[in-house]
């Protein structure tokens, strides 16, 4: 079970899942909604599904979203981030409904750049049972996509979380993925910000900003904060083997 947006991450996941278990065992769900609807995204998603032999279904979530907006007493359409997060969590809810109903697992398509920057909706787009490309930076995902046969224009397509119209990931992150990924690569390897800035010939200020954003998003990447009270604690020091699905 996977969401198909027509973007590079979900296209790569479609290709990987198809290789792993055969496209006929993968259901790609298109989850359009009125505000961010683009026919070209639907076309891209269908191209990928066809190429990798995936089953698809379309579930328009506009009605669900409008019900949310109407039902929440404090709903404010001006706060587009809060509103956008409802979209990501609704997509997640529908994906999990399908998985539940059809006895499947949800395959996530978040990448390492997004995960490190906290550029995702907590319990939203990131929620999944497996997440095959979360340890690959966006620039690596683009290369992998091409290697797997994702059409080049899709592999290079600008990223958007589609939480509101014309949303651009690079615009919001304030840095090109080509630069961001190198900064994150340095941080991953314990390099200091000044070292990274010098090696990449960047302003230290930018590197510090990226680092701070990375660190401040740790709460989005971890199990819930649980006070240590008992002998072994959920999310802290139970170290059980993960069960197979």
């Amino acid at each position, binding site marked *: 079970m996977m969401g198909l947006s027509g973007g590079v991450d979900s296209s790569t996941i479609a290709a990987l899942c198809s290789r792993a278990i055969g496209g006929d065992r993968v259901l790609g769900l298109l989850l359009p909604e009125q505000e961010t609807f683009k026919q070209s995204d639907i076309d891209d998603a269908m191209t990928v599904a066809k190429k990798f032999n995936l089953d698809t279904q379309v579930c328009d979530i506009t009605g669900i979203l409008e019900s949310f907006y109407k039902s929440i007493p404090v709903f404010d359409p001006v706060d587009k981030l809060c509103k956008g997060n409802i979209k990501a969590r609704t997509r997640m809810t529908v994906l999990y409904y399908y998985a539940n109903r059809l006895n499947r697992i949800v395959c996530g398509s978040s990448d390492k750049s997004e995960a490190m920057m906290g550029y995702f909706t907590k319990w939203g787009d990131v929620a999944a049972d497996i997440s095959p490309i979360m340890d690959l930076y966006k620039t690596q995902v683009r290369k992998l996509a091409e290697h797997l046969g994702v059409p080049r224009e899709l592999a290079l397509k600008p990223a958007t979380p589609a939480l509101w119209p014309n949303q651009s990931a690079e615009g919001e992150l304030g840095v090109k993925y080509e630069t961001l990924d190198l900064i994150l690569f340095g941080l991953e390897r*314990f390099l*200091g910000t000044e070292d990274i800035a010098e090696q990449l010939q960047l302003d230290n200020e930018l590197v510090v900003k990226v680092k701070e954003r990375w660190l401040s998003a740790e709460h989005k990447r971890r199990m819930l*904060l649980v*006070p240590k009270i008992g002998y072994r604690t959920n999310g*802290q*020091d139970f170290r059980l083997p993960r069960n197979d699905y």
Partner: protein
Amino acid sequence: MKERIKLALAQMTSRREDKEENLGKIEALTTQAKMLGVDLAIFPEMCLTGYVVRDQLYELAETIPGPSVQRVAALAKKTGIHIIFGMPALSEKTRATLYNSAVFVGPNGLIGAYRKMYLPTHSVFEEKRYFRPGYQPAAFSTPIGNIGLCICYDLFFPEVARLARLAGAQLLVCISASPAVRRSYFETLTAARALENTAFLAYVNLVGVEDGLQFWGGSRLVNPTGDIVAKAKYDEEDLTVCEVDFRDLKTAEAFIPTLRDIRPELYDQLRNAAERI
């Protein structure tokens, strides 16, 4: 050497990854301690950086001496107070080999440092993942007495305190970052290490919550017969001032002559048995 000294058990909360703020707190508490006529101010394990800082340790660790140690040494010089505090220390010979260390400075500068010998790596603890263990006990002869150092989980191993005692320490200082679920163990062990060695034991624990882990405070001074003579609050920051009179050692040692009765020949057996667990 002084026969009577005043201690400040500076039970503080650290702000994680904020050395500047924590140094500021160490300075404020030491200044407060000076007003109270204190000779030795003791701060908790890893109080310079906070305890649960995980991978950030590589960035936060400093050499000894290094900028933070120099700053605390300057504070000791300015106030005339001896200071013991905990920090992640970077080996001068490497770039990423770390020790969980207790640093001892006095008005004349750095006296020495102790590297934690027993690194807890179970339950919520992951010290062996980051730290190399120390190999040497620490006992320093200073104008305010013969003082030994150990850190937290070391207390579960009587040999650490005993080695320091046999090296001459009469006041054992244990700095700690002990979470609340283990409070009763430390309440027992602090008394036991003091009593079995007929030594004073000053225990200073961190307080506050870090990443869901609550440190319980409860710092204390235990006398050589195992009685708690001063105790800080549980779960709150506190500055407890108390007194050590080294003349009490004679009375205690004569009444509980554990040092006289030590059987060195058993230690070979102990070593052999330990290798065969």
